[in-house]
């Protein structure tokens, strides 16, 4: 049950054409070391699933900027003009979900549900192409679950069993993404022996995590800097 691996070993599971789900929100909470290694590995044609397209040179945004994604499932791309440009040029296929729906779809995939019913967007553009059901006289959209070949997340601490805790608002989508990968790789600022984390403070139980790697820290300048 010792899951600590080198970054090189970990990213071997990510291949051209893989679906890759990435934790984080507006760059915050994206795993920097894994993203850097993925870029260096040369994989492309990825299906990216992420809250947003980040910023052009921050976090998951770099995967888009470097043209490594063929498809993106997200709620927002406004902060990364490259995503919009590539979409416009038919180089990137994008599926949008309302943010609250997107994170529930990821959670549904992560906990093995067949989907969720929600009235968010039921009367608008969001509903296009989606099945509706009526429950107790009220219409809901069927929103399907999301999973991925590989999930990558960013944690404050991991133990060797893969139990994770997160850091402030960098928690965001990370605990959800951690559950939704067929293989989940957690990048942690600190890796501790089993037993060092308080069972009460663990957010993601190690059952959901397959590989733990040590973070080398953030390698980009923040948008606000």
């Amino acid at each position, binding site marked *: 049950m010792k899951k600590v691996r080198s970054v090189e070993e970990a990213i071997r599971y990510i291949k051209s054409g893989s679906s890759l789900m990435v934790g984080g929100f507006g760059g915050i909470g994206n795993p920097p070391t894994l993203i850097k290694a993925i870029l260096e590995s040369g994989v492309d044609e990825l299906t990216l699933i992420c809250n947003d397209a980040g910023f052009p040179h921050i976090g998951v945004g770099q995967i888009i900027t470097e043209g490594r994604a063929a498809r993106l499932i997200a709620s927002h791309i406004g902060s990364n003009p490259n995503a919009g440009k590539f*979409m416009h040029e038919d180089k990137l296929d994008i599926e949008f979900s309302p943010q*609250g729906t997107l994170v529930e779809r990821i959670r549904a995939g992560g906990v093995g549900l067949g989907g969720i019913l929600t009235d968010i967007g039921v009367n608008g553009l969001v509903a296009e192409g989606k099945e509706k059901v009526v429950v107790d006289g009220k219409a809901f959209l069927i929103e399907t679950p999301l999973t991925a070949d590989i999930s990558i997340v960013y944690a404050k601490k991991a133990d060797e069993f893969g139990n994770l805790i997160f850091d402030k608002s960098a928690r965001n989508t990370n*605990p*959800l993404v951690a559950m939704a990968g067929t293989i989940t790789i957690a990048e942690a600022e600190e890796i501790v022996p089993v037993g060092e984390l308080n069972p009460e403070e663990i957010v993601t139980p190690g059952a959901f995590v397959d590989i733990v790697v040590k973070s080398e820290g953030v390698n980009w300048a*923040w948008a606000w800097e």
Partner: protein
Amino acid sequence: MGMGVSVREAIAKRAAEEIKDGMIINLGIGIPTLVANYIPADVNVMFHTENGVLGMGPAPLKGEEDANLCNAGGIPITVVPGASYFDSTLAFGITRRGLLDITILGAFEVSEKGDLANWIVPGKIVSGMGGAVDLAQKAKKVVVLMNHTDKHGNPKIVRECTLPLTAEKCVDLIITDMAVIEVTEQGLSLLEVEASYTVEDVMKATGAEFHVADLVK
């Protein structure tokens, strides 16, 4: 939105009057963000951000930013006593469950029925709805802050929105550089006119009819 600083501040200041003690609040980006600066010290509220914080505080001092403590726009924040961190499903759980007392948003168009368009601009690249649909559809009170007209002088308050809707019949109050207008079951109702304009000025700049019976200033 092409407004002067003092106009933006005046709108934010007026919006702050809608905020009551004990409220849970989500502020959109742009002018709505400024509203926090005008809430009286004796009004205790909790700010919610959809990435996963309840209890946002003011911006940190320069040099004291924490890259792992930001709002949904990626801007560094602080937290107040009583704050909590959680994952984004819980943030939107609070929203969908109707626990946001008020959300304050920008808009491209608002219809007389309270329909909101603040998502897609024709001819521009679609940037995605983010959390706008969730917020507009589920907050208990939706307040829109915007210029009364677009840069060509065309009304942004209209009978029917021409742009794709973010959500139907969701807006409760519109605060602009010219007026404060309430959306009621009976249609729009003019509550206030900014000192440098007349009711006639507001009528000309508005693409829908409104009642003036409830005018308070």
